């Protein structure tokens, strides 16, 4: 049978961002898939070498649009490691709250995308409107809805405003109630189970070999999470579980995210209840002349996509000598996608892409 070539993307077919896949099809079965990134290349790593340590704070959040806070936290932690300082406890708790809300917001986006790709069009409307309540909270806390520019080396930029804790708890209660609605329409839906089960299986050995991280790895049966293994922010002091599923297919990858939302709600509730008083920022160099001592540091965090890493080299000047960013989506979007797509129907391509939760700017750093 003759094969033909088909371009998917670069506009939002299975990924929230600009990313395309060139498919070779035989009938409606994929024979070969070639991911084609590069539409979102803004040269973050090079740009960061030319700017001061503080000037990079508003840049790093742009590396992942749906989930910007892990980038900010990771960058700040790398600078803190080079400076040899530790943020105050209150700042750590505020960071945890922001990071977990960001994770929920990002997962809601993924649910919407995946449900849309299998034909359940009510879910995207619901999740995006519910995500807006979280964005309202971010606006109240940081002043910005999408790019928060909030986590600063040494701590955070502002204290919690009056009434934030009550409002955050209301939003958490609302989200918890909404999960039942999502269950009825989406997670327990016969159509979702029929479409997503057994599609795009990554088994445990392959997942470890290919360097899969985050929810995608935990859906394949490996219990690994940077929040537990190498605690940062306030995660070491909070009580939470790491959900693990063993199927490794698109269904399990979505279900693990649903379980993570429940855990995130638990984490935020604890952090809001136990938040200590005190300063929000450790003493850092003057922002006009932010000189970091020479050395190198590698710091990792767990984003909603997977493990994030910043490798930063400073040569004792006011600009970083080199910043390398390990985005989790590089593995998921390029190597895994290339291996998973062949053999599947064209109709399942976008749902496999969405179940991997790829963020293209992380690939084109």
């Amino acid at each position, binding site marked *: 049978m003759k094969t033909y070539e088909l371009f998917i993307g670069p506009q939002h077919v299975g990924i929230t961002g600009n990313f395309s896949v060139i498919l070779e099809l035989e009938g409606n079965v994929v024979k070969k898939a070639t991911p084609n990134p590069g539409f979102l290349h803004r040269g973050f790593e090079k740009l960061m070498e030319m700017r001061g340590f503080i000037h990079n704070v508003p840049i790093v959040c742009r590396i992942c649009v749906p989930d910007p806070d892990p980038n900010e936290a990771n960058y700040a932690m790398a600078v803190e490691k080079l400076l040899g300082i530790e943020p105050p406890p209150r700042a750590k708790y505020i960071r945890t709250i922001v990071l977990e809300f960001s994770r929920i917001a990002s997962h809601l986006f993924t649910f919407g995308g995946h449900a849309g790709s299998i034909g359940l069009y009510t879910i995207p409307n619901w999740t995006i409107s519910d995500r807006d309540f979280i964005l309202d909270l971010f606006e109240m806390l940081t*002043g910005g809805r999408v*790019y928060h520019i909030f986590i600063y080396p040494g701590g955070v930029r502002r204290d919690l405003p009056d009434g934030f804790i009550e409002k955050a708890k209301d939003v958490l209660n609302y989200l918890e109630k909404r999960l039942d609605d999502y269950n009825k329409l989406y997670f327990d839906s016969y159509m979702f189970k029929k479409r997503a089960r057994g599609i795009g299986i990554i088994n445990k050995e392959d997942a470890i070999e290919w360097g899969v991280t985050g929810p995608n790895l935990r859906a394949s049966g490996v219990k690994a999470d940077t929040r537990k293994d190498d605690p940062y922010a306030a995660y070491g002091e909070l009580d939470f579980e790491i959900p693990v599923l063993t199927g490794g297919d698109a269904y399990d990858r979505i279900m693990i995210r649903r379980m993570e939302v429940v855990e995130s709600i638990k984490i935020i509730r604890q952090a809001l209840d136990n938040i200590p008083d005190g300063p929000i920022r450790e003493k850092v160099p003057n922002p*006009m002349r932010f000189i970091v001592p020479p050395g190198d540091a590698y710091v990792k965090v767990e984003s909603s996509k997977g493990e994030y890493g910043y490798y930063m080299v400073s040569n004792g000047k006011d600009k970083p000598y080199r910043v390398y960013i390990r985005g989790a989506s590089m593995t998921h979007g390029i190597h895994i996608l290339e291996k998973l797509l062949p053999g599947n129907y064209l109709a399942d391509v976008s749902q496999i892409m969405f179940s991997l939760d790829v963020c293209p700017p992380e690939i084109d750093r």
Partner: protein
Amino acid sequence: MGIKNYFSPVSALKFLVKKPVTVRVPYEKKEPSENYRGFHINDIEKCIGCGNCARICPPNAIEMVPMTEYPKYKDMKVEEGKRIKKIPKIDYGRCCFCALCVDVCPSFSLKLSRERIQVETDKEAFVFIANNDVSYKDNLGYVANEKSHLLGLKPKR
């Protein structure tokens, strides 16, 4: 697939009586939050012209221009041998609304407002001197406080 599942679509009827989450924009207005980062407000009398805002600005959106460029102070007399104070002129095509300029302002004269909508046909209208004579001057948004100020200064009473 139990018998219960056949009746579950009936539960969708509850959404008929729920209030919609969307805002009907021309009739209802969505208020930005207390510390929203919108357009700048600068108290030119209070500004000391230090240029901290221009130096910290990550996208280089701020340019320091002589005070006499602002129409209100155009005819200001400058004494012989004295320099004219410089004030920030902001290019909103570049500004990323990060509010770092607000947090390094030693005189606390630069603030952000909650104004976020500006419609103009002329692109030059988006490059202007931050001032205190705008219609949104009382609609304060992100204002530096004791905890947020990056130089560790306290606002004067």
